[in-house]
Each structure stands twice: as C-alpha cells, then as structure tokens.
C-alpha cells in the first residue's frame, strides 16, 4: 500500500474557470494499492475538483490538446507524461493555451 500523498495543483490560462475560478489547490490523494500516476490524477481531478464541462479539460485519457502540463516546473514530455509517478509534495501545473481558455 502506498501512503496518501499531498500535492499542489495549479490551473491557469483560463483552465481555472472550470474549477470555479480557483487557481491553486492543495490536495491529498488517498492511499491506494499501487503508486499514483498522472493518468489516475486526471481521473481523480475529474471526479473531485472539476466543476463543469469535463470535455474542456480532459479528452480520452489525457488532457485536452492545447492544455500544457508542467511537473515541478518541467515540461511533462520530459517526465513520462501520463505515466509519471506522483511523489509527495509534487507541484503540477495545467495551463490552457486555447483562445478564451
């Protein structure tokens, strides 16, 4: 069993509109049998944080094209994208580059 982990989430570029306009979220992910990865985090966000229009944030298993992801200030493309295994105190940022958010 992996212990619960506390992470920091940030939404910007208009993506925050889907979260009641709140940009920063400190969340604790419950313990589960295997370690948390980013793909699971997206599902968790969708179930617990997302207030409306999930299709404007996630598409398929990944984020909507045009939304950038940074893991601890690094491009998620360098970190394994959806397979990245979350660590306690990680900082995950989602920035929309789409017109109007």
């Amino acid at each position, binding site marked *: 069993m992996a212990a619960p982990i506390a992470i920091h989430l940030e939404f*910007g*570029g*208009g993506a*925050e*509109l889907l979260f009641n306009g709140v940009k920063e979220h400190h969340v604790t992910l419950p313990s589960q049998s295997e370690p948390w990865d980013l793909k699971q985090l997206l599902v968790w966000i969708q179930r617990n944080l997302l207030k*409306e*229009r999930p*299709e*404007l944030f996630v598409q398929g298993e990944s984020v909507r*094209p*045009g939304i*950038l992801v*940074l893991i601890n*200030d*690094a*491009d998620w*493309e*360098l*970190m*394994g*994208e959806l*397979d990245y295994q979350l660590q306690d105190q990680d900082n995950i*940022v989602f*920035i929309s*580059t*789409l*017109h*109007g*958010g």
Partner: protein
Amino acid sequence: MCQVDEDYHDGLDRAEVPSVFKKCVKCKEASAAVVIRAGDTFCRDCFKEYFIHKFRAMLGKNRIIFPGDKVLLAVSGGSSSCSMLSQVQEGLSQNAHKKLRFLPGIVYIDEGGVVGQSVDERVRTVAELQAVFRATGFPFYVVPLEQVLDLPSSVVVMAPSSSEQPASAYKEAVDQFLKSNSGSCLNPKDQDPTSLPVVPEAHTQFLQQLIVSAKTLTARHDLLNTLRQHLLVHTARTEGYRKVMLGDNCTRLAIKLLTSISLGRGAQLAQDTGFSDSRYGDIILVRPMRDYSAKEIAYYNHLFNVVSVFIPSLDTKTTEKASIQRLTESFVTKLQVDFPSTVSTIYRTSEKLQTACGSSSTDDSSDRCLLCVCTLDTSGENSSSFQATLTSEQLSQTKYPARTKTDRLHPAPVELESSVPSGSCCSSGGGEDCGEVESGEGCCSSKEPEKTNLKTLLCYSCHLTIKDMSSVEHLPQYILLEAQRRKRRSKMREEISEFLLDDGVCFRVGD
C-alpha cells in the same frame, strides 16, 4: 509525445527511462526543463536566453521599427501580449548594443462590454492591468471598445504613408539616435485612474446589439476583430504612434491562416498574418511574437513570472464546433499533439506569402474594403462596381453551401435606407459630391432616398460576415457614413465617366 519517442528507438522502454536526466541540448550540462521542438530540450537558463534573443532577432531582421519610433503595444491581458510587453521591457533594460531603441506605449482595449462582463468585473480587470502597466513606466491608454462608436470615418480610409523609408535609412536612424541619445524615456503620461473614460450604458447596449445582430459566432468574431483593429489604429493615430505591435504568436497565426482561408480571406492572408501589415498606410501593424509558439510563451510566463490577466472572450467555455475559429483551433491543436511540426509547417507557409497590396499607389479609398481596409478582391482589373456585385453575388449563391445554410432562401442583399435626406449632398457646397457635373441625372435630381448597398464596398470575406448580420443598421456611424460617401462617389464617377480622359485621374472635376 513524438519528441520523446524519437529519442528512444525502442518505444517500449520509454516509461523505464527516467527522462528527468535528459540534458539541455545547448549547454549540455543542466537537466532539461522544456521541450521546444522535436528533440530540442532546453534547461531553464538556456530557454530564457533563447526566448529573449528571439525577440531581438525578429526586430533586427525585419528593420521596421526604427530607433526613436513611438511604438504602441496592444496588450489584451492574454499571455502572448503580456509576454511581448515583458520582452520590450527586457530589451530596453539591456545594455549598449543589445538595447532596443524605440519608445513604447501600451494600449488596452476593454472588450468587457461585449463578452458579458459586468461593470464591476470590468473595473476589476482594468485595475489589475493598470497595476501591470504602471510598473513598466510606459505611458498607457485604457480604451473601452464602446469608443468605437465615436470613431471618425477616416479610420476606414487608407492614409498616405509617411515617406517610404529606404533600407539605408535604418542605419542612419541608429547613428543619429546614438549621437543624440535622445528619447531614453518618454515622460510617462499616465491616465489618471480616476479619470478613466466613463462608458454610458447606452453605448454598451448599442455595441452588444451590434455583436448580437451577427447570427453566427464566426461572424461575431470577425466583427469584433474588425472593430478592435479600427480602435487600435485610431488610438495610435491620435496619440502620435506610427507602429502598433500585436501579440499574435505562431500558433495563433497558424490558426488564423487556416481560418482566413475558410472564411474566404485568401487574398488578405499575407497582410493578416505577416510580420508587418501596412494596409492603413500611416500606421504599420507589427507582429513580433510570430516566431513563438503558444507553448513557449506559456512556459516562459510561468517560469519567469510574467503576469497575465485572464479575460473571457467570445469563445470562453464554448464547444469546439461553436465557430469556424474555434473549430480550426481545435483541429490545429489536436494535430499538433501527434505531429509536433504542424504549427510550424503552417506558419512557414504564411512566410512565403507576398503582400499583394503592399504599396498601392492610389489614394482612392474606393478600392479598399470598407471593413478590413484590404484591397478589394472582388473587383478584377477595370471592372466596374456592377461587375463586382455580380461576382460576389454569384460566389455567395453557388459555391459555398456551408455558409448559405445560415441564410434564408433569398440571398438577402444587405441594404440600408440612407438617412441622408435627398439633395443634402449638394448643400454641403458641392466639392467632391456633385461639383459641376452637368449630366442631369446627378444626385440632386434623385428624389428617392439613396439606398446604400454595402456589398460593392466589401471584400468577399467581409461581405459574408455582413450577410450573417440581421441588419446593418447596428453598424457604427463611421462605417455607414463612409459607405454613403463611397456610394455617392462611385455613382458620380459613373455619371461623368464619358467625360473622363483617364480612369481615376480627374474624377474630382468639380474641384
């Protein structure tokens, strides 16, 4: 995704390799933070250097901004234009040979009224941006979009450009600037926050009616872009700026390019997406951010704390099929995920386009579109306005079923009843309108109200936009008045055509 794959020949290993250890391709020491293009991974410091260099290189290569030029930065609050502002600040703070040498000012067009922001929200947004602007020390202007209702008709007339500056003039200007060392700083002529223009509610309502009168989101977008650009150009003129910098990045321009094609703006592509745009003559629009992708900008702003203010647009929270602009955006960004060179490929195409109407020598505004001020693409050489009408009529009836779907059965020619009482054009002292035209059928004798049909005054694409409007009565006065003026002019020209020696030479016979 592809970038990473390309580096690992065996894609299956991917998850196992801790890519955090990937090194920066430039310094080859620090670990990478950003993937720019396929394979190009930069560390934080090298990325910053690359980003800053690119801005200066873009301006240096094009040599449009002269030392000492007054340049108005159009800042919308979005990440791209705020990044542009930060790059100008960065450039002005550099030392000696790397220093930018122009005099910047900032303009913010407050569109809150048409995107459904309440008065309170608008005040809050403006206050937030003012704080950003004030920190730069540059003069700034906050202009509510409602002011577009008070524009003079001259906005939609191409002004003669101030003498062409030859390439050699650039170096002279640099030398002169260095010698005089003047203009190190403009006296910041801030707007006093308390004296911000008060927007009458009636104006906001009028503007809302105008936007809503366009039935499709596509047309609303187009209309809003047009009005915004007119206001930007007007502000630049009245405040004494000769260049306006726009924040369009290459992702945005790639989307704009494809959108423009879908909207029938093929003829205007070069002007709409190129580095510089001289359609207004005396004011040149410049796009210095066109080499940056939206991703680069978002990463830079995040990593180096460039403040931007999110402002809702017509697109906010709309689905990807809401408008042609939105659909194109989603098409490009989706393609970009699997084919990372999508944007740059489209963008390179735009670089190959030539400016079609670059330095049109004619000062006759009647060959310019009433709305977008581009050379009319509807009239072939020597074709009369009648032929232009036919052309656009045929095109809009037969070729584009996607558009006509929104139209009713009759292809409603957009017309308006002129509010000008008959004969009034003569009382204005003749001049360009009537002059001493002898032909009896002049405007003086026509007792019926003149009908202004905008169709012949618009390029193909603007014509489509206007067709999507329920009524042109909602258009601002400056556009309607200019339309009437042009109609009167072309009518007169037709009437005296047999007396003209050479086309366009002496149609002002009355003067």
